[in-house]
């Protein structure tokens, strides 16, 4: 980072009337600005442009690395960290839809829940949600062939339906439960689930790995058990996943069964079911 870095603290003044689009409000974009200038940055509120300072009290202090700290209920604020390339954004409450969508780098940490499409088409960096995420987290926008395509998503709460739909690369964790069609149409990547999942996990998954560390789901008819010695890849994977902690800590110590599928499609994906 060549520009002088700064941390901005943005305290929400009041809940906005319409949803607000935070695209463009990133640590790097704000980093070069002063407090007053940052307050004049235009964001979209409903159909109208609004100055950032109208919605937030803004304080800037110099720092080693660029960062934004949001305080307040941001559940009506969408596209937090949209296409962010670097830096850090922390939110001390909930956020709206498309949080960290198309993220390319840096860290986004949300202390509350995130809405729909969190980390969708994320390509790098990390989104950590202490609460739950809505539907289509790590999924794809309409028409896109790939959902999340890199980076790490950590959800400490629950996930909604269609988690990681069309995800292609990267690693995603759900510590709690997942909704229906968990990892539907998965293209590739690794997903570890700590709790239980809804109906039709892995529906039409093409490649990729699902690790069910919690409740073992019923295996559909279009998945096939492969009885081979898995210890090598399992050790590599389990040791890596275990670093996330929580329900994944003990993975390296558990024996695992493997099912390949979904043979309704390419059938090169796998379910790993630790015993």
């Amino acid at each position, binding site marked *: 980072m060549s520009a002088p870095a700064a941390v901005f603290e943005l305290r929400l003044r009041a809940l906005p009337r*319409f949803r607000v689009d935070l695209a463009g409000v990133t640590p790097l974009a704000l980093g070069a600005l002063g407090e007053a200038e940052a307050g004049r940055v235009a964001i979209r509120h409903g159909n109208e442009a609004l100055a950032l300072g109208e919605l937030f009290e803004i304080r800037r202090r110099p720092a080693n690395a660029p960062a934004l700290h949001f305080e307040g209920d941001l559940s009506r604020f969408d596209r937090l960290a949209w296409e962010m390339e670097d830096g850090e954004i922390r939110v001390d409450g909930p956020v709206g839809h498309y949080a960290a969508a198309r993220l390319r780098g840096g860290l986004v940490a949300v202390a509350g829940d995130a809405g729909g499409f969190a980390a969708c088409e994320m390509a790098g960096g990390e989104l950590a949600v202490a609460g739950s995420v809505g539907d289509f987290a790590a999924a794809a926008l309409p*028409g896109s*062939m790939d959902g999340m395509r890199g980076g790490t998503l950590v959800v400490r709460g629950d996930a909604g339906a269609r988690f990681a739909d069309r995800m292609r690369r990267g690693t995603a964790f759900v510590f709690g439960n997942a909704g229906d069609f968990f990892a*539907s149409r998965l293209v590739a990547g690794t997903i570890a689930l700590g709790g239980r999942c809804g109906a039709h996990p892995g529906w039409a998954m093409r490649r990729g790995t699902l690790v069910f560390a919690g409740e073992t789901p019923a295996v559909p008819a279009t998945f096939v058990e492969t009885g081979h010695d898995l210890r090598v890849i399992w050790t590599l994977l389990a040791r890596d996943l275990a670093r996330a902690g929580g329900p994944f800590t003990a993975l390296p110590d558990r024996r695992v069964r493997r099912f390949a599928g979904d043979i309704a499609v390419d059938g090169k994906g796998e379910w790993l079911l630790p015993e």
Partner: protein
Amino acid sequence: MTASPTPTDAPPLPWTCPFCALLCDGVALARGETLELRGSDCPKARQALAQQPADTAAATPTIDGRAASLDEALDAAARLLAGATLPLFAGLATDVAGIRSLYALASARDAILDHLLGDAIMASVRPLQDRGVYYTTLAEVRTRADLIVCFGTRPAERYPEFFRRIAPGEPRRREIVFVGTDTDPAAAGPDTELEAVPFAGDAFDTLALLNALAADRALAAPPPGPLAGLAARLQAARYAVIVWEPGASGAQGALVGEAINRLVGTLNARTRAASLALGGSQGGYTANQVVTWLSGLPLRTGLFRDGLRHDPWALATARVLAGRNADLLLWVSSFDPSATPPAADLPTIILGHAAMPPVAGAPQVFIPVATPGIGAAGHLFRLDGGVVVPLVQARDDGLPTVAAIAGAIAQRLAAPASGAGS
């Protein structure tokens, strides 16, 4: 064809029924006190015709529940729209002309567009956006299909004339298989064999198995016999058509569509097959087609001031309203009086069917409009996508068209005095 009143003994009017997306045009209307269907006993058409008020003169515009002149109502509607910054145009149950006119208004007011059957429409659009489809149309089904698989639907329940419309014009053997439902006697016909194949699990499990079987994949456990038999017949058919119903396929209906089209794709590698998605009633496919060609994007697109954004999830009427992410609802419903606007604590403009019951609540303007195919001529898209069927005016009921109302509101907004726009 605007003559009115029509004597009862006049020959029935060759008519096109607008009340479901089959748009049956081989029927006629006898026009007396009431409108009576000839050439078909379609219960859906009969019910809809029975709902047409005999006297539309009683249907007047209202402002906040009080009767008003059309001019007053238009003024009030224009005022509401001018004061809104984020309007939602929903319902959109109208014809081509209506959507064209509403689109210009929506563009001027930066509105969000959705249809009252938006969930079903998106369930048919998403498979197309995500992976593509291979589809067919009624004449092809009628002329060439030797195996018709109704997947999870009994089409005649919502499209009563469906099997009549796809009945071969000359003797030809065909099989109609109902997967996941009982056979429908409505499908019976000469040389037609009916069969029911139960789901193995639910629709999704069944489609997964069918896809694996059609691709000759080995399964861990033998599949249910009837399903394996169906897969074999799909592979052997000269032209297999898989009929499904996006609106009846549940919250993840788009995935049903995708799986069906995967099956069709697998079959098309060696033989011939196609899918047919039943939907698009109440001008649903019409609204989607017109909005798509005008804007470049399908329904559930916001013509926002800073750009167009298509979001089938966030811009669903229910989600927009629940999130209070609009400050005005313009509701258009010209076919079905029971298709009333969803509860919303928002100023509401209703361009509604003349028999629509009053809706309690927020400040609102109600303007009764002609039903295309009853009070006005028009055009609608048929359920198979590319065929536009002309509607005739059955009688002159004095009601304005949606196109006319939207145009009149737009004119008021454009007038400098209204203070609208900017």
